[in-house]
């Protein structure tokens, strides 16, 4: 597949999602494309809902999502995205053999998958028998093995060891260099801010910030602390309304 600039653009327009009386996403208009974008917010801010809407897993209450110029849900849009997703314990019956049969159907590059699983040091055993961290690594390896222009990662560092974080950082940087788009949703920035070109912050379903990362970092004074700490502070200040 030839990767073009337009094929990595994801645009949401006044996107709303309501679960019963709970408003998970409230008129969010945001876009991201080539490079890495940090999707920041507290637990329950609406990050996963936004990813689910982009992935076509849930339907918007109102508003639209466009992927590479195609309406979400079409085959053209589906061909552009990949997503990290951990399988739950209810899928414990899915043996490695069954999983391979399922994943093979989705154009997973099996050689690359095996290479990534080796690199992440994921043991070759039934999915249900893997530790939580290794299940996350398995999900990450699977997502990166699809090598699609747009990759959606949801809390990829939650439960990931330091070796895993290093590999993840390199993989995201490689995607950016090759002109692909990566959206990383996290409630706790542990990846280095240098990795990201831009940031989107949402809270209680509302968009608080959409711009380059430097602009977000400007919200907090540089006191020489670690870059990840400064990013976390900036995010906290933005959400709580306390500015520098």
């Amino acid at each position, binding site marked *: 597949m030839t990767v073009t600039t337009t094929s990595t653009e994801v645009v949401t327009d006044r996107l709303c999602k309501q679960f019963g009386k709970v408003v998970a996403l409230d008129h969010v208009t945001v876009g991201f494309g080539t490079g890495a974008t940090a999707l920041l917010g507290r637990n329950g801010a609406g990050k996963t809902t936004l990813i689910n809407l982009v*992935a*076509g897993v*849930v339907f918007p209450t109102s508003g639209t999502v466009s992927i590479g110029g195609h309406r979400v849900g*079409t*085959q053209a849009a589906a061909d552009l*995205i990949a997503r990290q*997703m951990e399988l739950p314990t*209810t899928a414990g019956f*899915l043996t490695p053999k069954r999983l391979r049969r399922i994943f093979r159907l989705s154009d997973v590059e099996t050689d690359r998958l095996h290479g990534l699983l080796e690199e992440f040091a994921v043991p070759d055993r039934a999915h249900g028998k893997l530790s939580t961290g290794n299940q996350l690594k398995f999900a990450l390896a699977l997502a990166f093995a699809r090598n*699609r222009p747009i990759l959606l990662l949801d809390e990829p560092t939650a439960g990931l060891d330091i070796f895993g974080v290093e590999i993840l950082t390199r993989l995201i940087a490689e995607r950016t260099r090759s002109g692909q788009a990566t959206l990383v949703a996290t409630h706790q920035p542990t990846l280095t801010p240098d990795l990201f070109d831009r940031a989107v912050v949402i809270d209680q379903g509302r968009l608080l910030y959409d711009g380059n990362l430097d602009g977000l970092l400007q919200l907090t004074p540089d006191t020489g602390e670690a870059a990840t700490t400064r990013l976390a502070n900036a995010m906290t200040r933005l959400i709580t309304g306390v500015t520098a």
Partner: protein
Amino acid sequence: MRNLRGIFNSMSPAGLLIPLVLSALLIAQGTSLMTREIDAAKCGLDDWRAALEAFENGAVDFQGRCVGASIGAPGQDFSWVDEQIQAAEVAYDAAVASVLADPWKLAADSVGGIALVFFALFVGGMASGSPLGSVVAAWGLSNGWTRRAWARSTLTLTTFATLAAYVVALLAVMALLYARLSSLGIDFGLAAPSLEALHPIPGLLYFGMLGVLSGMIVGRGEMGGLVAVVVAIADFMLSARFGVSPWFPTTWHQTAVGTATVPMSLPLALGLAAGAAVVLALVGYLFFTRRRDVPDR
């Protein structure tokens, strides 16, 4: 075909055992019922012949498996036993003739009547519910598959599985039937399948699509099948409560397989069952492609 394999692999093997075992047991029971009249007639015939032999050897009383007789005292006339034997032979020939008249229809009604109804309900429920419950659907939708492809594949898999199970079960029952007739020493030729053998198919597809819709709504594998079973049983109970009428889908199927007599023609019953299958398939397709949020946890 790729999607069919994906969906099939997301179905729990243990969950699939439930409908398979249940259907196999019902098929085995149904097969023995198919030759019940022949067995009864043969039992009566054999007993009357044994009774005649016993009386000729001086016995006064005879008690067989199916027939008991007495001539009262030694030396009494027992020529009437010959008449009983002739009557038993007529009954036996009639029973054999009724089975051989259209063994395919007999086998089809036996297989499709109840045994495969459970299979269709469960398989439909699991084909749509399992990928949702095990998050395979969410994973797939996030990784290159579309809702339309998923919905189409689920409906196709259920249709194929139901039809394949029906054909396999029908052939197996026919083989068992012929083996049974052979063991009774009945001469027969291998009959060509009749069109009547297709009658259970619309109803089975209706139940399969009911399972699909239940699985899509419930979003769990075996639970989807169970809900479909409950709906089907409720339908059956309502029709029993308010009198068997053409208003209940189970009645259409019962009419097709000859277990209910209602004021409706067979073509109408078959048409309604097929139409209901199409409507349920369409509702399931539209529900999944336009409304169903897929769980991702």
